[in-house]
């Protein structure tokens, strides 16, 4: 009577049949490595394990082979399935490259009356001629934006503080609206502003041209003002007033806010979320510092590490879930539409979690 053969009969000469696949790694400590395959799947290995994977000193059944195989770090030689799987996932991951760019940022000035130490832009405070976009450049940029093959584009005004060059914003909006119909484009406008310079004239212009406002709100007044200094120390007061006025004139959904997490924010995530709720903002994006501009020059980026960031993020996420489970909704008018949910925007996005872990161990 036939019987099953012993497991050993199915073993192969793994050393000659395994091949290494493209990988990247970062050292997280003396003997700890974060290893990523071609499409960004991650695996934690110690130094000895990494050496064994790279030198292919692994074999089916030893545990490490299975971990490396599962993460597409190794494959069987001559087997195309692993390669095809990687290729398929790579193609999906890069699918955005086939889409035309819909978002076009117009940095109309580098000047700003705030002096936030974490600013992503190397802002300037003087010399309008040198640090404002010229009309000539603006009109050329409009043509570039409208030449994008996509039927819908978004034009976002950034700075510095774009309201310091509002006349150029007005000119660009007019030029886009004039040229867009001939190219069958639908255009959405956003002004990213600290709202300190918001006037009735600006609000009326935003209302008449259906322009969205995006502002910065880092939390309660003391935290916000500490993070975002300006002459008079009243950034929070002006931002809150601006949000309220914009909500009244443009509609609640036409103004949004972003926060930036500094060292001073770390123990206060609940207060930050509460501040967003108090102002009837319907979502929050817990956002870490971006390693650009003044954030590097002032060493703000070095003030906290991956562990502190993740602890802050987890506390915030738990609190947001708790808020939602209580049925608290900052915007009763839209409760029926959105199911009374206070949203955490861009949850678990690359920027919010993984990158920080990779950059700082």
């Amino acid at each position, binding site marked *: 009577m036939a019987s099953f053969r012993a497991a050993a009969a199915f073993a192969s000469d793994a050393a000659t049949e395994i091949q*290494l*696949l*493209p*990988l990247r790694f970062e*050292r997280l400590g003396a003997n700890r490595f974060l290893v990523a395959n071609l499409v960004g799947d991650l695996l934690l290995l110690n130094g000895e394990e990494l050496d064994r994977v*790279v030198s292919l000193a692994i074999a089916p059944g030893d545990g490490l082979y299975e971990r490396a195989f599962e993460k597409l770090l190794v494959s069987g030689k001559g087997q195309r399935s692993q390669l095809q799987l990687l*290729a*398929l996932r*790579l*193609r999906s991951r890069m699918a955005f490259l086939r889409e035309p760019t819909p978002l076009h940022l117009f940095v109309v000035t580098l000047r700003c009356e705030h002096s936030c130490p974490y600013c992503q832009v190397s802002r300037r405070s003087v010399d309008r001629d040198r640090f404002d976009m010229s009309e000539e450049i603006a009109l050329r940029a409009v043509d570039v934006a409208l030449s994008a093959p996509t039927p819908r584009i978004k034009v976002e005004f950034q700075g510095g503080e774009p309201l310091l060059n509002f006349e150029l914003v007005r000119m660009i909006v007019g030029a886009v609206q004039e040229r867009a119909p001939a190219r069958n484009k639908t255009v959405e406008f956003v002004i990213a502003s600290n709202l300190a310079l918001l006037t009735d004239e600006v609000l009326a212009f935003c209302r008449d041209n259906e322009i969205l406002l995006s502002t910065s709100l880092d939390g309660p007044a003391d935290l916000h003002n500490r993070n975002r200094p300006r002459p008079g120390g009243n950034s929070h007061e002006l931002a809150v007033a601006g949000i309220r006025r914009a909500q009244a004139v443009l509609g609640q959904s036409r103004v949004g806010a972003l926060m930036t997490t500094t060292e001073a924010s770390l123990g206060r995530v609940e207060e930050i979320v509460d501040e967003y709720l108090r102002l009837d903002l319907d979502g929050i994006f817990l956002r870490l510092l971006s390693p650009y501009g003044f954030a590097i020059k002032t060493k703000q980026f070095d003030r906290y590490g991956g562990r502190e960031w993740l602890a802050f993020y987890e506390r915030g996420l738990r609190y947001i879930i708790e808020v939602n489970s209580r049925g608290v909704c900052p915007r009763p008018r839209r409760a029926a539409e959105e199911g009374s949910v206070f949203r955490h925007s861009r949850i678990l996005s690359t920027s919010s979690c993984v990158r920080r872990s990779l950059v700082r161990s």
Partner: protein
Amino acid sequence: MAEILVEFDRSTQSIGALREAAYRIIRDASCQIETAGERYLCRLTPKQGGRSTSVGEEGLRENFLDLVTDENLREKVAAETSGVRDVILALAFGALAMKQDDAGPA
């Protein structure tokens, strides 16, 4: 803290890995790479506010050697996987390139 000198044999150590390691340690030390006969001389000048004040001269040297070791491993992986990487890229995007070719010049 005084300058730290780390030497490598040119016959076994690539300059590319040294340059990458020099870049990665830039927050803690500036690294000047010189050639002297059959040796590469890496002169590390610790920076104020960098980690050298806490880890000391020997710690900084070890850190640099770790970075060079890591870069050497990255070079080895890149060299050994370049062929299969091309295969994967061809599988992923080859069809798109063919479509583009078929479309002819714009």
